[in-house]
């Protein structure tokens, strides 16, 4: 039988099982006696083993088999599902993922399971209790393998002392079920979905991502052409043409929405990584915390989703490493010993809000200001006019960090400046709220879809440029006398904040505007974590633009995010304002 025809199906289904295993393991650490989850884990390993055996992938079989055996010990021999078990299962899932990647790339297996299977077989709980020793014969036979056992149980783990565990163990023993008769009363949502999908297998197809990009491209071109037709219809004054164009517009709108939907992926697609990393971070820093995820079902463009992983990982890392206090400190402050880190996703029309919050020590604006002055990032004069919100945003300045020490956990990866920059690149924005002593909240607002954006088109000297509305906090028509001079800089008052004024003309190398009417048009945007007002000659209105990425060498020009064609055929540059300043 030619098995190569089943390879892709094998890979996609095996990865689904791995994802279920990852999510279920992390979930079980929260509620270790969840019988349905324990069953699901066993089945996941069992199915992986069977599938891999059919494909003759011996290494995968070996790893999956040892995971299945470990889960049998949990199901039937009263082995507590504690951190050591979770670690081994996650390690196994990673091993299999690596092996699958080799299979996918048609490489000779580069990784070997090594002694993984032996370590699982030899696994003993850190504080083996007499009852579990008497209950399980397998442990007795594996105790001889001293070194492996020490390896498996070397990690100290707080959650192994959770009271729920001993209850869980007791209930397993009381049930005394054999493998075949074990009923699984509840079904996890993931499984319910899987069942539905499997039943209607012909209703989904896989398509290449380039095809999706091509579809979006064509739709964008059609929309640009629609604007041309609209202009022609207006010039000709033909009611018939206008009606046909308006009907076409509606159809195009519908087409655009459908194409965008095809590109949407649920946030869930990247969630298991976060669960894994938060778990690992909490463990490494020895902090006791609960991680909550909300809004997994919210859809985002796949391109945006990919770009969100790193910034979110960084925010979560900060929350665990800096935001969260150790339990002793929390108790002393009158809080619960266990901290809460939350990642929630909500949708607000065509924008998605992603919030990383914690109930940790929070950030003190005054401490932020002092640190920024000490590091010569701002002058004491500038500090005076900062609002608390602006002070918190100082953390987004390059070179700013309030970490008292560079730990293994926080010392790596991107800083807040990089987080902010990558969010702005997506046409999004970052806001920080914090209350010293009660916690912090970082909110990322990103567009749900890319490619077609709403932009504010402005005139600067002889050129028209477009600024994505996501980068525009608001537009202001300022009376000339409302501008004040502080030091050498021009500022104006907005919501009790002194916001610096800059000329977009000057930045673009155009002659400065004159404003004979005494009204200065400007838009407020954010750069390096602070609000600035950018003065332009004239607002030309909001347009729906189809963004074309620029090829080299134009893509190397600073501050340019892409190009687009206006309805009349005129080409405008789309600015990446944050990059420009």
């Amino acid at each position: 039988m030619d098995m190569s025809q089943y390879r892709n199906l094998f890979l996609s289904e095996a990865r689904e099982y791995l994802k279920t295993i990852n999510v279920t393991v992390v979930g079980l650490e929260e509620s270790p006696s969840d019988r349905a989850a324990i069953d699901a884990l066993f089945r996941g390993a069992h199915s992986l083993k069977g599938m891999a055996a059919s494909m003759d992938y011996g290494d995968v079989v070996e790893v999956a088999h040892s995971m299945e055996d470990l889960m049998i010990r949990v199901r039937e021999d009263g082995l507590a599902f504690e951190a050591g078990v979770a670690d081994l299962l996650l390690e196994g899932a990673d091993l299999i993922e690596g092996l699958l990647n080799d299979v996918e790339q048609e490489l000779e297996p580069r990784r070997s399971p090594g002694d993984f299977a032996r370590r699982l077989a030899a696994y003993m709980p850190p504080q083996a209790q007499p009852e579990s020793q008497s209950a399980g014969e397998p442990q007795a036979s594996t105790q001889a393998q001293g070194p492996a056992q020490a390896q498996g149980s070397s990690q100290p783990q707080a959650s192994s002392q959770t009271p729920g565990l001993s209850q869980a163990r007791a209930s397993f023993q009381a049930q005394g079920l054999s493998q075949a008769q074990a009923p699984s009363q509840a079904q996890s949502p993931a499984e319910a979905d899987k069942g539905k999908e499997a039943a209607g297998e012909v209703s989904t197809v896989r398509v290449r991502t380039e095809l999706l990009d091509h579809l979006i491209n064509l739709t964008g071109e059609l929309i640009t052409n629609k604007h041309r037709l609209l202009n022609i219809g207006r010039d000709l004054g033909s009611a018939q043409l206008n009606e046909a164009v308006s009907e076409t517009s509606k159809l195009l709108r519908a087409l655009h929405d459908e194409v965008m939907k095809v590109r949407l992926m649920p946030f869930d697609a990247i969630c298991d990584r976060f669960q894994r990393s938060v778990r690992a971070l909490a463990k490494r820093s020895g902090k006791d915390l609960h991680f909550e995820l909300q809004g997994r079902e919210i859809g985002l463009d796949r391109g945006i989703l990919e770009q969100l992983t790193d910034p979110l990982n960084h925010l979560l890392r900060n929350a665990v490493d800096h935001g969260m206090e150790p339990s002793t400190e929390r108790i002393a402050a009158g809080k619960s010993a266990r901290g809460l880190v939350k990642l929630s996703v909500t949708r607000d029309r065509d924008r998605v809000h992603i919030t990383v919050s914690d109930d940790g020590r929070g950030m003190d604006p005054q401490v932020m200001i002092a640190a920024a002055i000490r590091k010569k990032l701002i002058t004491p004069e500038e500090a005076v006019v900062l609002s608390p919100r602006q002070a918190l945003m100082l953390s987004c300045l390059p070179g700013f960090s309030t970490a008292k020490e560079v730990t293994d956990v926080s010392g790596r990866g991107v800083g807040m400046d990089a987080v902010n920059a990558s969010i702005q690149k997506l046409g999004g924005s970052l806001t920080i709220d914090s209350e010293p002593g009660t916690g912090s909240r970082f909110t990322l607002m990103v567009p749900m879809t890319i490619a077609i954006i709403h932009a504010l088109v402005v005139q600067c000297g002889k050129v028209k440029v477009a600024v994505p509305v996501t980068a525009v906090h608001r537009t202001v028509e300022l009376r000339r006398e409302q501008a004040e001079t502080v030091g050498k800089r021009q500022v104006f008052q907005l919501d009790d904040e002194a916001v610096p004024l800059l000329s977009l003309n000057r930045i673009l190398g155009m002659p400065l505007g004159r404003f004979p009417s005494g009204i200065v048009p400007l838009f407020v945007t954010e750069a390096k974590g602070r609000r600035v007002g950018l003065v332009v000659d004239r607002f030309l209105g909001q347009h729906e633009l189809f963004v074309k990425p620029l090829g080299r060498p134009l893509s190397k020009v600073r501050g340019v995010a892409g190009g687009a064609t206006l309805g009349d055929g005129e080409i405008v540059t789309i600015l990446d304002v944050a990059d420009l300043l």
Partner: protein
Amino acid sequence: MSTTVMIVDDSLFMRKMLRDILEEEEYEVVAEASDGVEAVDKYKEFRPDLTTLDIVMPNKTGIEALQEIMAFDPAARIVMCSAIGQESLTTAAHEAGAKAFILKPFNPELVARVLKEAAES
């Protein structure tokens, strides 16, 4: 008229493989089910000549589904699919009325032979 079969397995990969083997042998696969509950429901709906039933499945295990199907139709011809290492379960399945066993990973010739015997029994 060709023999009708229902395939029950929680893995799409396994169902596809088994379907290909069976269709090669000119069986008519009339239904697929991905868990024990669906298996019982679809058995009642399709009344296949033969059913292949995986053991480890969500919602209802293969053994539970077997018992329910046999209670509904004592003449049901059911072949259990199990992995190596589950031999202990064969007794329970035999007692519940399973006609035969096929082992995973599937060997196409062996599967064909076992199913033929089960269909003719």
